[in-house]
């Protein structure tokens, strides 16, 4: 066990990730609305020691009731639309919706039209767009940390 932890510590030193943010956090909830599983793999990878989203205050939470951001992947299938809407309805305000990957952005979809519910834009208000097929973990990490920075850029009160 100690060997394993030492090994991981060495990996972290070698990677030399940028220092953690000093402010804020975002709770993320993911909904797979019909993906090929590529975006899920890369979102999971964004938590590995190379990118380590958690150190920037970005964590996946189990329930939409605890989430600030809804990360939606996949072409929105007709069969997943109700579950997607239910997850969004369960979120507290203020809430953000992120379209993760080209399918969620409605690009180059393949399949039958009656199995697709239409672009995410038409179903939920999209605040954040992360393109890629699938977006690399570095792209996901950069987009989410940028969103975090923007949200926490509190204007300095004037005297």
């Amino acid at each position, binding site marked *: 066990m100690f060997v*394993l932890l030492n090994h991981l510590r060495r990996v972290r030193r070698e990677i030399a990730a940028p220092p953690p943010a000093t402010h804020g956090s975002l709770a993320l909830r993911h*909904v797979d609305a019909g993906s090929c*599983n590529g975006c*899920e793999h890369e979102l999971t990878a964004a938590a*590995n020691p190379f990118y380590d989203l958690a150190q920037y205050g970005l964590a996946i939470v189990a329930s939409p009731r605890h989430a600030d951001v809804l990360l939606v992947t996949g072409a929105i299938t007709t*069969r997943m639309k109700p*579950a997607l809407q239910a997850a969004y309805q369960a979120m507290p305000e203020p809430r953000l919706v992120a379209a993760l990957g080209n399918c969620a952005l409605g690009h180059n*979809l393949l399949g039958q039209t009656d199995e697709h519910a239409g672009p995410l834009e038409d179903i939920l208000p999209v605040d954040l767009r992360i393109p890629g097929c699938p977006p690399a973990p570095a792209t996901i990490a950069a987009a989410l940390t940028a969103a975090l920075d923007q949200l926490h850029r509190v204007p300095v009160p004037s005297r």
Partner: protein
Amino acid sequence: MRGSPAVTRVAAAGWRTACLEAQHDGERFEGLFATTREAGVAELCAIFSSPADTRVIVCEAPDHRVESIVDVIPAAGWDEREAHDLHDLRFIGHEPLRPLLDHRAPLAAWTVPTVGHDTHEVAVGPVHAGVIESGHFRLHVVGERILHLDVRLFYKRRGLEAAAAGRPLATALGHAQRACAACAVTNTVAYAQACESALGLEPDRELRRTRTLLLELERVYNHLHDISAICAGVGFAAGTMAYATLKERAQRVNERLTGHRFLFHTVRVGASDQELDVAAIDRARGELREIRDEHASTWRQLQFAASLQARLSDIGVLSREDAERLGAVGPAARAAGVRRDLRAESPRLWYDAFRPVAPPAATGDVASRTVQRALELDQSFALLDELLAERFAPGLTHEVSDPADVGIGRVESPRGATVCLIERADGRLRAMHLRTGSYANWPVLAHAVAGNLLPEFPLINKSFELCYACVDR
């Protein structure tokens, strides 16, 4: 190696007898598909394989009724349910024929009724707590003990097969790839092989080597991912992250070699474009050796992690008899002692003298499936090391027989035997049927879960690590 598969045509009345005879002769069931023809006539076909040959049994069912084979070949259970939902076929003797894809059906129609003192249901999904694909599980339990699991997938159905029909063969490869990212190479190679077998084409040495390289690269990152996921299923974070790191490194090798972390756009029908010079293969070989050594030392550490090991044994047991009976495939079947691996019967690929491996004590539990991944990783690293000793040039196919209407591709994915059957007409794709290793194993997983405790379900699920996307299509 022969071109297109032999097709045995039977009348609807002879369907069951023909399938049962094939099974009796030692041929292995590998999938059943239906198609609706002109004037609403349903056509049914089943694939049967022996190590030497693969053939298709076809029958027309003008009145949409045939005798079921599920009592003798339980592996056909999901296939028959799908054929019913999509093509309105009735399978006489398959009672009750529960809906599989049809989500409009009420709960009582697709779940198995459980009665008795204190039985209740736990519904999970389609949205899960982690970063997981969408699917619904209905667990029938008493206290914490699972009596039965009903799996409802197909939430991610995009209609890829139907959308591929009518397109040129080369274009429809994109649909096969889109089915699943983690099996992208397997599914596209199976599709390309199906097209080539129908066109009477045979791959040359370079094409076989290139596809084998891609398939083994896919297996390595998937197996590393699976061990990481099993550690996560136990809550052993150090192991999860150590293997997530190894998977990341493997995917970076993929990206450097092919330009894509999931090896997308690397497979074509009839040819391969990959050109890898000495510098590229040397670098990849070196990196893969580092990953192999790092995996070996991390794996050793996992053996001493008592909190991990204590959770793996005797959980989610799949007996050898059940694995055979239910048609289990891939690492899950081999971990139960079924030494079958399509790589040993792949003349269209570069697996000379390949021998399937299985753990010495193939106990069929989570521990055994975990060990199986490690054994297969050793095998894959050795194969890759051998392949990468020589540079890669573009590959081609040459004509060996006359074109036919039907073709089959069979490839061992990281999750098991994947079979693709295509029909062509007027130079275009008439129909594509993809039956992946995950499709074969979902009913097996449901069987292995029964009798275990509810909190073990995520762990058992991860030890199979099946895809939802390439089942839903």
